[in-house]
């Protein structure tokens, strides 16, 4: 642990520190700046290109028209059956309304939405990720937000039990940094355990570990058995380009339904194929090709005609980068730790989508909206401190893989391989069983008990190499921790529901109806049941009376 007198190459103070520069982080920073807060945003990669949104080329986003009650109710109601009794409908209106407001703000700042050929109607529902993130970056700069690129946070700071900033490194320069802040917003995204999907290499659950080290809790970590098809050997777990036109086949060429049937076909026949063979309309084909640039770069560069030939696919883990579990938050996006707020994919999205899949449209809306709410809440919390922010006594909270060691017995790569070995296979994480989960957890616990106490970063030949080593030790500890919370929760929920599938408990269990699983802990992982309450719907109903 760094000593209190440690010097930092960059040492700053701000009202709000945002950790993670995807869409949720960008909106958190803008919302905090709108509240009058000074804001620093620290991004592990580059704000504009990092994460699944910034690399995705196309991403849909849900919003609801303010003046069309029928459409509003339809969008919110339609998601309830696939939320499995764990969502709060009022959160649906709140999230989709806020994403509408954010898209409206983007238009006012000069972003031009696609229009119908006759120029009459705008369409805001489909975003080009890299383009809109480049635009948001320019808006952040106009709002005087300080952006630290290539600057992963390694540990949080606390002051009298409240989050008070963070410390990290710059992985390009090797410089160290510290930002003291009145409040911290965590927007570090989910993790796919480095399964090989777009944007996954920056997403290693770092925010989970930092938050857990100061006492944050998780919710719905069992709803994480999310896998998606991708053309073999690619990072492209995209669905939109084949929506309505694609057909899956098993390894032997037998037509197969989507979802569970498809996963079983892969497990039984050892592979699968896809072909966009449900349309022979040349205009449809041409418009699909033009409107899904990144997927069609694959076909073009590999010389595949997806409309007329089958191409092999794999099922790849998307984990919490596309499923509901994450840091538990309340209606103000506060975590259980004072001064620590969270938004986007690193939070539990159960309030919106329960135990089911968020999909891209709701997930983008969640990032835009909860990022915004978290930034607002953080800015308001930070007014408690004012000028004291720069001078109050802070403690560095990193505990696992955060300290320097002269040498280590186990490398970060070895720990990460063990975690991937347990998290990535379909027959361990898509289809879960009690004995399988116990075996995976036993392996995780033995690494945690034997390797982690002596696990730390080791000085390297250059400051840059040292910074990268510091990052990878924390990444290994983060991924291992995330695996423990996920499988401990999965073992506790003795039923199948949404994105949690137990072959030994294939049906709903009434004991778990309307029950969330809250988890946490590092030395000892714990999990407890908490009854679902429509916090926001109930509050609004009370206010209406």
């Amino acid at each position, binding site marked *: 642990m760094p000593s209190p007198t440690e010097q930092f190459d960059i040492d700053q103070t701000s009202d709000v520190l945002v950790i993670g520069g995807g869409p949720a982080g960008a909106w958190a920073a803008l919302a905090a700046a709108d509240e009058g807060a000074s804001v620093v945003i620290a991004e592990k990669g580059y704000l504009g290109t990092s994460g699944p949104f910034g690399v995705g080329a196309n991403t849909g986003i849900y919003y609801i028209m303010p003046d069309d009650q029928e459409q509003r109710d339809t969008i919110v109601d339609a998601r309830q059956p696939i939320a499995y009794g764990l969502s709060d409908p009022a959160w649906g209106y709140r999230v989709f309304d806020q994403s509408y407001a954010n898209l409206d703000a983007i238009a006012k700042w000069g972003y031009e939405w*696609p229009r119908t050929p006759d120029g009459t109607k705008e369409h805001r529902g489909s975003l080009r990720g890299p383009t809109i993130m480049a635009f948001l970056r320019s808006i952040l700069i106009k709002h005087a937000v300080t952006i630290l690129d290539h600057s992963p946070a390694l540990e949080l700071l606390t002051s009298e039990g409240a989050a008070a900033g963070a410390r990290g490194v710059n992985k390009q320069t090797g410089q160290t940094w510290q930002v003291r802040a009145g409040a911290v917003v965590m927007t570090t995204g989910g993790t796919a355990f480095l399964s090989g999907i777009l944007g996954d290499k920056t997403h290693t659950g770092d925010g989970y570990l930092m938050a857990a080290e100061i006492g944050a809790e998780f919710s719905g970590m069992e709803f994480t058995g999310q896998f998606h098809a991708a053309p073999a050997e690619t990072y492209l777990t995209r669905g939109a380009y084949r929506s309505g036109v694609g057909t899956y086949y098993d390894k032997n060429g037998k037509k197969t339904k989507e979802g569970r049937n498809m996963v079983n076909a892969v497990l039984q026949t050892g592979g699968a194929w896809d072909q966009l063979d449900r349309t022979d309309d040349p205009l449809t084909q041409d418009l699909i090709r033009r409107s899904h640039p990144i997927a069609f770069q694959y076909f073009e560069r590999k010389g595949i005609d997806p409309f007329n030939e089958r191409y092999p696919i794999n099922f790849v883990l998307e984990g919490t980068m596309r499923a509901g579990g994450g840091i538990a938050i309340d209606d103000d996006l506060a975590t259980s730790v004072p001064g620590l707020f969270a938004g986007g994919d690193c939070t539990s999205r159960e309030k919106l989508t329960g135990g089911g899949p968020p999909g891209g449209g709701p997930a983008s809306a969640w990032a835009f909206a909860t990022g915004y709410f978290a930034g607002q809440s953080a800015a308001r919390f930070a007014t408690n401190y004012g000028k004291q922010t720069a001078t109050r006594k802070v403690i560095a909270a990193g505990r696992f893989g955060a300290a320097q060691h002269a040498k280590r017995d186990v490398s970060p790569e070895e720990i990460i391989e063990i975690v991937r070995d347990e998290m990535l296979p379909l027959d361990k994480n898509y289809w879960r069983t009690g004995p399988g989960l116990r075996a995976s957890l036993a392996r995780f616990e033995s690494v945690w008990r034997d390797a982690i106490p002596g696990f730390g970063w080791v000085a390297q030949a250059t400051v840059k190499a040292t910074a990268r080593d510091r990052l990878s030790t924390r990444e290994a500890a983060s991924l291992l921790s995330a695996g423990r919370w996920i499988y401990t929760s999965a073992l506790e929920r003795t039923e199948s529901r949404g994105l949690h599938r137990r072959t030994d408990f294939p049906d709903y269990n009434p004991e778990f109806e309307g029950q969330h699983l809250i988890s946490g802990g590092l030395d000892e992982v714990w999990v407890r049941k908490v009854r679902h309450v429509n916090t926001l719907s109930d509050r609004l109903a009370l206010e209406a009376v």
Partner: protein
Amino acid sequence: MIEFINADTCTNCNRCVEICPTDVFEPSATVVQIARRHDCTSCMNCELYCPTDSIYVSPIRTPEVDLDEAAVIASGILGSYRRAMNWENGQPPQGTGDNWGLQLRQHRGEHPPPEGDRDYAIRLRLYNVRDRNLIATE
């Protein structure tokens, strides 16, 4: 995984070094070096930000076998992703820059959603209300 930087056209502006989310590149005195190739996730953002279409990223996770750099350059494919995304000179368009997605939506929107699609129930209900094309896929 990134395959090559065209040394004949790279101006060594270091824009790719700046924007790569996984720090694949390293500056040098002549042309930018691919220093950490295995950190690349084929996000292709370096192709968008490159002002001279000098970078070729393969969409697959492993190095291409027997890739003929000269043939790839001669094929004219360098910059194809940038063109499809409407970026120019390393700069984004002022907005999406095309309406292909909207045209696709309109072209298909005259039919009810195909059964078995993801979010079919939502789509069917939306089809029956006025703004049935509002909901985005993906």
